[in-house]
């Protein structure tokens, strides 16, 4: 009886100890962007900085990533936020003081960019047939 009790208690303890989840990896550096003009830091995640009016300044790679995210999550974003995003929404071209072609992104769309990027980093599935069907029914 005693050995049974020891066995039972040991198994209970082991069951409680088997599930170990690793800590979530947190990025602490910006990603490299090869399309950044030489006058700027290359580790910028596609964001050069801010304009005096508070708009974001993106590289061409930053704009491409933003557009790809829109393409991937357009339907889910509309369902979650009630906003229909199209490629290049909120983006305007400009030439900086060094003669480089860069892009402004307005405040609201920069927030959307961040939200979409967080979905990608979380591994959220891109729009699928089910999302298309739901959008079609609505």
């Amino acid at each position, binding site marked *: 009886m005693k050995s049974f009790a020891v066995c039972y208690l040991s198994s209970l303890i082991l069951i409680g100890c088997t599930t170990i989840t690793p800590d979530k990896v947190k990025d602490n550096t*910006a990603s490299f962007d090869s399309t950044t003009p030489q006058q700027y830091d290359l580790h910028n995640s*596609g964001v050069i900085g801010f304009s005096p009016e508070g708009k974001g300044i993106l590289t061409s790679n930053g704009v491409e990533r933003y557009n790809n995210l829109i393409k991937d999550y357009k339907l889910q974003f509309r369902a979650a936020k009630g906003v229909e995003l199209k490629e290049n929404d909120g983006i305007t071209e400009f030439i900086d003081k060094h003669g480089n072609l860069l892009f402004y992104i307005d*405040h609201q769309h*920069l927030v959307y960019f961040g*939200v979409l*990027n967080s979905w990608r980093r979380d591994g959220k599935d891109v729009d699928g047939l089910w999302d298309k069907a739901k959008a079609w029914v609505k």
Partner: protein
Amino acid sequence: MDFTAIFKAIGEVFGLINNWMGHKNTPEMKTAQQQQKEVDRQNEIEKAIKEKDIEKLRRLLSQ
């Protein structure tokens, strides 16, 4: 020694843990947690933009 009472007590403790975990993992709770996470994240992005905290924004926008 009354093993039955001990086993019963242990069983009750595990029952309580199970109820608590089960409650925490209901679909409604999961949805609420996900929505809260989403709101927190959006607030974080908005704060970085408002404060023009470029390093933080770059981290949030990294791939």
